[in-house]
């Protein structure tokens, strides 16, 4: 059953990916804004397409080709904007020559699993998760996992790790979290859109990871929360630093976002993984996702209008896709950054 759901989800995902460009209504008078990048933010952008068409008559064409692809596209100026879940590295920032990076959506990564006969929302914490992905913990009835799930009959089943094989902002968010909870992960593996995984099986795209986990007893993997929710995959409640277990829901994301509301002065980047103790509701693997725009653009007035709309009214489309509207202080910074775009 779960396999069938995964197939349907995979098909639907591909179909929406293809349909995004076509979804925007054709308005004769309108300007066309083209963008490319993050698949994570794609469901939200696809909702924005028709709405921005109605509001301003713009046609929005967005290709969800992955965060790295989006950065490359905007660096080469083949699109009007790029979208990335991983903030630009310093090298990328220089290469982009006069780009501004704006946080424009906020969501989380869920850690999914497939253990038959065990309820949804098993408990998990960061250090244990890092040990699993390091290959140190190999079975589901390991004392470390048992300790987190008292009273749950965990089977003597091998853990099968599934990670992304393509470059992905979700991988960045996930490894950013592991590096923040495990010094060993930080020094041995590190953080990136693709890393040198110590163990496990690679699968292509969120759909590939979800499908592989779904048909592997004992499987564990990570996908963006909207994807996990829409394809009904079970995921962990993650222990945050206060010791509480939080789910990747809107509340948990909002609490995590409250932990850091001061974007970096030059890059506007924010890292909200593993927030401090005083946010007891925080889900620890939350992330901002960014839009990257050249400050000088032939379509500057239209881009400004669209981005203002996206970070304000556009946020209303978020909650039902599990995107938490961005908090006020971040919004202020985003709006300031948008004004930098000129012709």
């Amino acid at each position: 059953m779960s396999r069938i759901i995964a197939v349907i989800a995979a098909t639907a995902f591909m179909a929406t990916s293809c349909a995004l460009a076509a979804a925007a209504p054709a308005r004769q008078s309108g300007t066309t804004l083209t963008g490319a990048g993050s698949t994570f933010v794609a469901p939200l952008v696809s909702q924005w397409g028709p709405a921005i068409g109605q509001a301003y008559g713009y046609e929005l064409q967005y290709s969800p080709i992955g965060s790295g692809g989006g950065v490359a596209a905007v660096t080469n100026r083949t699109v009007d904007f790029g979208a990335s879940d991983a903030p630009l590295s310093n090298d990328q920032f220089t290469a982009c020559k006069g780009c501004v990076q704006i946080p424009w959506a906020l969501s989380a990564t869920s850690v999914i699993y497939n253990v038959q006969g065990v309820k949804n929302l098993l408990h998990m914490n960061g250090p244990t998760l890092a040990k699993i992905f390091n290959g140190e913990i190999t079975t589901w009835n390991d004392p470390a996992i048992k300790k987190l799930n008292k009273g749950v009959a965990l089977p003597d089943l091998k853990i099968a790790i599934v990670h992304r094989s393509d470059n992905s902002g979700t991988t960045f968010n996930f490894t950013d979290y592991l590096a923040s909870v495990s010094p060993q992960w930080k020094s041995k593996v590190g953080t990136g859109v693709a890393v040198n995984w110590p163990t496990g099986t690679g699968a292509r795209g969120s759909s590939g990871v979800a499908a592989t986990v779904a048909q592997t007893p004992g499987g564990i993997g990570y996908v963006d929360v909207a994807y996990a929710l829409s394809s009904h995959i079970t995921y962990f409640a993650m222990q945050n630093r206060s010791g509480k277990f939080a789910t990747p829901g809107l509340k948990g994301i909002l609490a995590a976002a409250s932990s850091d509301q001061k974007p970096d002065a030059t890059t506007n980047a924010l890292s909200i993984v593993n927030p401090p103790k005083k946010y007891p509701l925080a889900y620890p693997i939350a992330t901002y996702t960014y839009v990257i725009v050249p400050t000088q653009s032939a379509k500057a007035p239209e881009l400004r209008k669209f981005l203002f709309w996206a970070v304000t009214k556009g946020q209303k489309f978020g909650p039902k896709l599990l995107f938490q509207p961005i908090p006020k202080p971040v919004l202020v910074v985003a709006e300031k950054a948008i004004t930098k775009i000129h012709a």
Partner: protein
Amino acid sequence: MTEIEAPRLSGRRFRPGDLSLQTVAGAAALAASALVVLIAYTIVRDSKPAWSAYGLGFVTRAVWDPVKHVYGAGSFLFGTVVTSLAALAIATPLAIAIALFLTELAPRWLRGPVTALVETLAAIPSVVIGLWGILVLGPVLRDHVEPALHSALGFMPLFGPPSTTGSSMFTAIVVLTIMILPIVSSISRELFLGVPRDLKEGALALGTTRWEMVRGVVFPYARGGIAAAMILGLGRAVGEAIAVTQVIGSTVSVSANLFSTGDTLASKIAASYQGAEDKAQVSSLVYLGLILLVFSLVMNVSAQLIVRRVVRRQGTSTRAGVA
């Protein structure tokens, strides 16, 4: 092959038809050759940062770490060689058996439909075969075939502990086998059909069994052609990216166990090129492309040498269709 000399344009009469034919055909041939040169040039140029930084050691080093910027092709080259050769080794006898069945053994009414079905297999897009590989084939191999092979032949390191997710080199080999089977079998079938009837009937008239006739007449006649078909199949297997990327489990590892995960050159390029972050990684990926190009070239040339030798040994009495 004899060449017919093209009529001189400066001859008695000006022939616009000939001139345009020559121009169009010549331009097409030139464009195709220029394209090969251009592609090779681009790949050499764009991989230059990688080969000048990592040198030839890159080819054998089995590491790929985008965080620490250390790259090497070793595990991908290993995966490419193992998966493509194993797929060819499984597909060739099967394909020849199918071709023999369709030309010599099957009842006449069955030949048409079965031929059509086998050739339809070649028309299935690789991404669809890959999807089927993830959802159906992988789990079946993991739950039934791999444990059986492991318990029967587990003393060989080739058949180690079964995979956990269903993604493995073995799954990739089976997927590749399915993909090259119709290529080799349909060419073999054409070759077997081309064996002169009088030779076959002569052999049977001399009292040979059907198998002796196949072994003594059909196989020698088609040998060079079968080798050519195998080259085509191998080329397909080496270059296949998408279906492999979907089922091989994409990990940087060199393991004798066929049931472990791995990766191939083509699959790695397909998985990682889009959105590759730093320049070192991009040019390393193009370097993988260069290795793939050289690898295919070497294999093609050596295979053609083999074909030529086989054909020469056969002498001039047979005229197997070898390109």
